[in-house]
């Protein structure tokens, strides 16, 4: 049970983008540098995020990415789903045995639901708020 690098790096980059949203369009190279991520990999992740309607990309000297919607309206669940596909922990099962069907309903679906509630409840805007709060209380310079 793992979140792939695509999901991990993509979410981190999206939080970084939201943190710097006020600076206007953010070049991927800046995100790559701040987050110690490969620019090539970020480009492939962001083309998927653009297709999925999370970011707007602009080419050129003043180019870069911006959020396509307000950060309040982007949940962590939706970003991870766009990057990872279905977040369910159980495989798509053949009809299977009555035992298996029972466990899907009472165990795997219940766990999925708890995960979804948690990730859906948190928006990018909330992440930004929390990180800024931490930064100011720790007097650190991550921003």
């Amino acid at each position: 049970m793992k979140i792939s690098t695509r999901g991990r790096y993509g979410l981190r980059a999206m939080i970084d983008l939201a943190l710097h949203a006020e600076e206007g369009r953010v070049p991927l190279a800046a995100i790559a540098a701040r987050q110690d991520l490969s620019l090539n990999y970020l480009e492939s992740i962001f083309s998927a995020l653009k297709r999925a309607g999370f970011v707007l990309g602009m080419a050129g000297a003043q180019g870069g990415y911006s959020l396509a919607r307000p950060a309040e309206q982007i949940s962590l669940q939706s970003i991870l789903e766009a990057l990872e596909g279905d977040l369910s922990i159980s495989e798509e099962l053949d009809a299977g045995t009555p035992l298996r069907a029972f466990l899907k309903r009472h165990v795997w679906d219940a766990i999925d639901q708890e995960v979804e509630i948690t990730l859906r409840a948190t928006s990018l805007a909330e992440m930004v708020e929390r990180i800024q709060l931490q930064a100011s209380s720790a007097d650190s310079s991550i921003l």
Partner: protein
Amino acid sequence: MKLSTKGRYALEGLFYMAIATPDRAVSIKEIATGTGISAAYLEQIFFKLKQSGIIRTVRGARGGFIFNQPLSEISVGQIIRAVEGSLVPVKCVESLSACTSRVRGTCISRQVWVELSDALARAADSITLDRLRTEWKTEQEGGMPR
């Protein structure tokens, strides 16, 4: 974020024991027949479950596996950890040194993975074999499936 078949089959095997043979030793062969899972694969999985102390073996003609703990104390979380090692979907949650990033000290996403892990653990640890057995019985007796 898929669970391995190991985790799924471990729960299926133990759930079969909980509803069919809670009080006697049962052979891998019988569990294989009852669940439709290959006996060879179950053998590997049950070895790990035994190591973790969830079940033990009984020798003899009527030997096999038997629960080593009350069903009310065996949770889905415990079963998955026993066979998969962990219930945590991103390594840094357990150990920050597992992350090789230069910026791990100021990571802006680790908190998300901590909360995701907490949600998984909260859900999986709250479901016990005892509770599942009760729900199964209710449904078998004609209760409405959820």
